């Protein structure tokens, strides 16, 4: 459906499956999406960390992190928090409904560069969405990496995304999966406490390790501080940024943080780069 190489024309896609990750007013719903056109589907090539503009015709588009790894199959997954006009409309979609997709956009995690290293992901809340493709990618190419440690937390167990998947991982000895919630709950047999303090409790070695973090700004701030305390160098730390976006292709202007466009130069940033941009954590 994309004609004349026009980057503003979205691809048609169909929602194959949906489910709720969390409930409440700001519920998070996951969409498994399949691009309609076979050729488009074959040529689609995203990497962990990239995003896509997904939307509903007549309502608009939002930039959403692609929360699956290409190793999982010829489909896309998006986990969307119900927030504004477009995400409200997306939440109405059920299996069989149409959705539009543009992308994939942005840079990605340098997973090739990271081969041989231990991968440590530190996520909070919906911030696990861009972490999940890394976890899945490393799981699928486990021999290429020096191991995988995942720390993931949310306010309550009901606020954790992908919980079912990670419960299984927590039983797997090859992967080190640590779930945490902010306050004590009945029947919760994982950690209780904030993500940054759990990081300190685990005390991971910085040696030959890459740490990636994504979550609420306050969590990121303390995670970065703690990673430094643990001896991580800036260049060993990655995070992703988000900003309001309209075009996704570095034209509409608004997603800049300093001189960087989050849609083109990001969303993945090395902390060594990011700390030089005064606006990055604004």
């Amino acid at each position, binding site marked *: 459906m994309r*004609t004349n190489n*026009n980057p503003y*024309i979205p691809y048609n896609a169909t929602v194959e499956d949906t489910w709720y990750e969390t409930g409440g007013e700001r519920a998070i719903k996951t969409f498994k999406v399949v691009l309609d056109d076979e050729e488009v589907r074959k040529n689609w090539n995203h990497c962990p960390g990239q995003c896509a503009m997904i939307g509903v*015709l007549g309502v608009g*588009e939002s930039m959403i992190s692609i929360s699956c790894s290409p190793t999982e199959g010829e489909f896309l997954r998006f986990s969307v928090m119900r927030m504004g006009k477009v995400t409200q409309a997306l939440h109405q979609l059920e299996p069989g409904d149409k959705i539009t997709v543009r992308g994939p956009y942005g840079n990605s995690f340098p997973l090739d560069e990271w081969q041989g290293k231990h991968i440590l992901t530190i996520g909070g809340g919906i911030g696990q969405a861009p972490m999940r493709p890394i976890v899945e990618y490393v799981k699928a190419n486990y021999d290429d990496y020096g191991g995988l440690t995942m720390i993931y937390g949310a306010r309550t167990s009901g606020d954790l995304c992908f919980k079912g998947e990670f419960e299984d991982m927590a039983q797997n000895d090859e992967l080190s999966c640590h779930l945490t919630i902010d306050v004590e709950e009945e029947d919760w047999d994982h950690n209780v406490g904030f993500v940054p303090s759990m990081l300190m409790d685990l005390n991971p070695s910085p040696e030959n390790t890459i740490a990636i973090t994504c979550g609420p700004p306050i969590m990121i701030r303390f995670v970065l501080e703690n990673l430094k305390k643990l001896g991580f160098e800036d260049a060993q730390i990655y995070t992703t940024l988000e900003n309001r976006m309209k075009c996704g292709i*570095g034209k509409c*202007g*608004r997603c800049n943080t300093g001189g960087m466009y989050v849609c083109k130069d990001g969303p993945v940033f090395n902390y060594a780069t990011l700390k030089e941009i005064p*606006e990055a954590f*604004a």
Partner: protein
Amino acid sequence: MSAMLLNKEKWPDFVGKLAGKNLWVPRADGDAIRFAPAAEGEAPALDYSNSRVPPKQAVFPQTETLFRFKVDGEDLEVPQIEDQTVLLGVRPCDARAMTIIDKLFSWDENDPYYLKRREMVTMIGLACTEPGLNCFCSSVGGSPASTEGLDLLIVDLGENYLLEAVTEKGEAVLKDTADLLDEAKDDPIQQKEKIIKEAEQKIKRSVDPEGIPEGLPRLWEDPLWQRVSASCLGCGTCTFLCPTCHCFDIQDETEGFESRRCRTWDSCMFGEYTLHTSGHNPRPTRRERTRNRINHKYSYYVDKFDVIACVGCGRCINLCPVNIDIVNILGQVKEAL
């Protein structure tokens, strides 16, 4: 490239020859000048300082349909841009501005709407003999007779206009109007040079941008940003009427069963521009927005595209309702460095 003379008496005939195409001319509208499609037989007087809205609107319309679709339909209809357009009377600063935003619209992915319009437009410029009160083009790489971005330059020599072709498109205009033109000899060229030199000397405002692009990041927390934005109303005039501002919003509109996705000019001076759906705003006040506006034009754009995204047209100074003055801001930046 050739240079020809057009006697002013033949001006209406010259404009008449261009009228076969989609011709935009400067027209008086109240106390302002605006570019608009020419009416039949309309021959604009070339006696204005500059238009209020820059002629970028002809290649980057204020509102533009990206595609149309029916409610519940899947087929998208993309408007075709087929008209050859002639812009008549463009000031050199505004033509230069388009070469600056060309870089944005063609880096990485091409913007097909903008680039198609650019390809279809012939720009006929008008050299400045009487610069405006707040013009400072010569500070930022321009000049009253700069031909950057123009296809043809018109210089007012009194009795005659001197017409200098800059590109093949400009040569084509001279060829189409050849029966109205006379050969320009050495005299008119010398006369032009004298007039332009005088015009340059009439420019009263100036700033030396040396050191600003590299220096701005160091002034991130400088009190000057609070000072220069204190009176800002956030109206967005400075950016809407800026010939190098290119930011846009994308919105869907539905009327009955007909819908369209369109883009409209937007401004970094508006709070909604960067407002996250969570309520968080990375640029929460006019201090941050003003800082971004100046940094974008004088630092980020220079880093990315190697040119200052300001042509010194003076519109943001002339039309700011509270007299915020970019030359003054840049002066304060220089002082703080």
